[in-house]
């Protein structure tokens, strides 16, 4: 069979397909969305976007209860949302394999924290597999279904950004049959599946026993592999760290762990007995290191390698040199501190920014105008926090904005304030706090920035976009209808690129003393691709007042000491023309 270059996410999807997964659900969170986007393309697989990760795990659990192999995928913080469901599935087990993929994000390329989800495996008492590259991502995901069924447990597969979004070669295999086997009648087994205290008490010892059996099985499993080299140094590692460490220590002995929970304790002890010194190389928390210490294996880990951020081979080499594991000067560090040839100019940083023509800009410009405190949320619009808009003042997790705004209100804060949340985030976790505002007689104004798609993660559909993951047309749930249904009486819809209308509606809502909601609706420009004729600045009329620079739109540049519009970048949204007091900005004819 041929070989193919695949990202870790593509390989996870391919492995799940080879493992005959039938039902898959996910909420798209970076670095995980491509798993379901790939899985939906395989024959014999049903895959859907769920409104959030908890729903995704419940859907997968239901399918597995009914006897179909099922998968849920999410980013690391998504597992916080789905934790309740992870824990009950650990207790109930299932009728068919259930695999949950967690994609961690060391270095926070696109996340609010760098939590280490290996702790969840220990916490929920379920096994966790951790691949090191795409071929293993395929193999381990496939294997996870067999483990799940053999031990009646959900199985976690942990990826990280550098596994999910790195590409390496994968061996193609014979495709499985796409035909769905006939299901037996639903198995009713309340003692196993109804987790009331009396039943859960019966299940708990079974879970403890299961961990012991898994540990024994993992002892003999070949994905926990001793690679003997020079016995002077024995490295215990897993995941992407294995690749970095292999590059830096080509001669050393390795214990490469494919299962990070439960650990193959005897294999670890055996490895330790065969080498002079044990060093643990793992990103983020000292998870393996602490477990090694608990079983009495002396080792070094976080004394040499950092707890923060992600590794690369250069960093591992530098740490190893500083820690005396290999000879030589820490080159990267030397390079970083050595006087690099001086630059004749500063290099301006380049953080991400709202796209040219992005409609979020219109709402943030108005909120800045009213000096409102903006309790924010997670999505592209979080970029409104950056200069020059500076119009977003908190961002914690999905759906936090509305509850936080209600709390600020109930605390008696007299500032003008609003909650700002995106459309996909609203469906994810925005509805319960919306109910809280009404139920508890709050007066919060909620602004839903509805760009009709899950934009930041790469334009995935959601319950308000009118299409499913498979791109089939479906109901288009209107946010204003949801707000009215839960009891909001003051609800308006506005196009945030209509400056005057937006300013008037925001003012009215800020002044009202009742719960209110504005849907600021304009499709994501990158997705809708409605490119109109660009705008231009008449240098005769422009008095260089600088107002247009306050919206931070990329085409508005300085050229020859004057404001100008880059005709290649401008998509013709016309917002800058509306705020120009001199009427100096006009559309190219």
């Amino acid at each position, binding site marked *: 069979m041929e070989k193919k270059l695949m990202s870790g996410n593509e390989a996870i999807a391919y492995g799940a397909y080879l493992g005959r997964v039938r039902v898959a659900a996910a909420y798209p969170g970076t670095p995980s969305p491509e798993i379901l986007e790939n899985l939906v393309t395989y024959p014999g697989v049903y895959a859907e976007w769920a409104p959030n990760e908890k729903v995704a795990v419940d859907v997968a659990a239901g399918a597995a209860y009914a006897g179909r192999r099922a998968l849920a995928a999410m980013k690391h913080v998504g597992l916080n949302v789905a934790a309740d469901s992870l824990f009950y599935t650990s207790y109930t087990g299932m009728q068919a394999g259930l695999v949950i993929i967690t994609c961690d994000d060391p270095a926070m*390329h696109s996340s609010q924290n760098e939590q280490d989800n290996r702790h969840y495996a220990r916490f929920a008492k379920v096994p966790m597999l951790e691949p090191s590259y795409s071929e293993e991502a395929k193999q381990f995901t496939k294997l996870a279904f067999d483990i799940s069924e053999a031990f009646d447990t959900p199985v976690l597969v942990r990826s990280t950004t550098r596994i999910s979004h790195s590409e390496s070669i994968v061996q193609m295999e014979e495709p499985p049959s796409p035909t769905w086997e006939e299901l037996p009648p639903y198995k009713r087994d309340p003692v196993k599946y109804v987790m009331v205290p009396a039943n859960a008490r019966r299940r708990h010892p079974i879970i403890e026993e299961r961990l012991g059996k898994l540990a024994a099985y993992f002892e003999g499993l070949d994905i926990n592999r001793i690679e003997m080299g020079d016995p002077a140094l024995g490295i215990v590692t897993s995941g992407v760290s294995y690749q970095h460490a292999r590059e830096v220590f080509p001669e050393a002995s390795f214990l490469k762990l494919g299962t990070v929970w439960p650990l193959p304790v005897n294999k670890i002890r055996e490895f330790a007995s065969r080498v002079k010194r044990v060093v643990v190389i793992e990103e983020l928390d000292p998870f393996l290191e602490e477990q090694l210490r608990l079983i009495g294996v002396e080792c070094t880990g976080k004394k040499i390698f950092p707890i923060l951020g992600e590794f*690369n081979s250069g960093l591992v080499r530098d740490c190893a040199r500083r820690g005396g594991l290999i000879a030589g000067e820490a080159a990267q560090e030397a390079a970083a501190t050595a006087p690099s040839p001086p*630059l004749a*100019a500063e290099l301006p940083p380049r953080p991400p920014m709202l796209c040219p023509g992005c409609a979020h800009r219109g709402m943030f410009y108005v909120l800045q105008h009213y000096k409102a405190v903006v309790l924010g949320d997670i999505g592209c619009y979080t970029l409104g926090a950056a*200069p020059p808009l500076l119009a977003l003042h908190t961002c914690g997790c999905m759906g936090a904005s509305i509850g936080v705004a209600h709390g600020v209100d109930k605390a008696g804060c007299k500032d003008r304030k609003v909650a700002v949340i995106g459309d996909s985030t609203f469906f994810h976790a925005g509805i319960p706090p919306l109910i809280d505002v009404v139920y508890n007689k709050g007066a919060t104004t909620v602004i839903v920035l509805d760009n009709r798609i899950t934009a*930041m993660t790469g334009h995935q559909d959601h319950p308000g976009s009118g299409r499913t993951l498979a791109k089939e047309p479906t109901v288009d749930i209107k946010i204003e209808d949801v707000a009215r249904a839960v009891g909001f009486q003051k609800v308006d819809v506005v196009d945030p690129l209509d400056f005057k209308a937006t300013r008037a509606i925001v003012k009215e809502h800020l002044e009202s003393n009742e719960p209110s909601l504005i849907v600021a609706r304009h499709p994501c420009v990158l997705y809708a691709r409605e490119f109109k004729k660009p705008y231009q600045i008449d240098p005769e009329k422009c008095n260089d007042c600088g107002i247009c620079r306050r919206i931070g739109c990329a085409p508005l540049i300085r050229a020859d000491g004057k404001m100008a519009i880059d005709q290649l970048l401008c998509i013709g949204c016309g917002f800058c023309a509306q705020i120009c007091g001199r009427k100096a900005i006009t559309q190219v004819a």
Partner: protein
Amino acid sequence: MSVLNIVIAGVGGQGNVMACQIIGMAAVEEGWQVSAADTFGVSQRGGAVMSHLRLARGRPYGPLIPAGEAHLVLGLEPLETVRVLRRYGNQQTRVMVNTRPNYPLAVLCGAAVYPDLNVLREAIGAHSAVMVEVPADRLAAEAGNLVTQNVVMTGALAGSGWLPLRLATFERVLASLFKGAVLESNLRAFRLGVAALAPEATAVAGV
């Protein structure tokens, strides 16, 4: 050389990931061990992005290139080319750079100044052995679509002779990735890139 380290640098939206994928797929087809790492997510919104691509014979390498160890840098934007060179470049690094600037937010709001192109050229020179400039915006416009600047640059790199890969392989990869009119404009962009570089490539081939 046991591994060839290529860094592709640019701005979110310029097609870094696609350029990386095209070269990576061509390398796989020619039997190389390939590992690549891309920037996704929040960074793609006009932020600095970078792809690492490593071609090896024998065992595969990890996805990330250590500081100071880039053999080739494909720069889709001049400022970003300097930024990655200061971290990944060395006196042997070869650089191919698109000369069209793209201004970061701080420059747009007047809080910072975009360095003069000659200053950037000098900085590239200080961290490399060879620099070749490509007017990718002009060539992409000639190909009929400005968004193909990344493919122009990929063509230029393919035509430079710096990669151990055949031009025909690249064209096969493009044909597997695109269809119809999109394929046509990408092929035009790729060939214009190749043609732009061919004479200079012969000149530096002896370096």
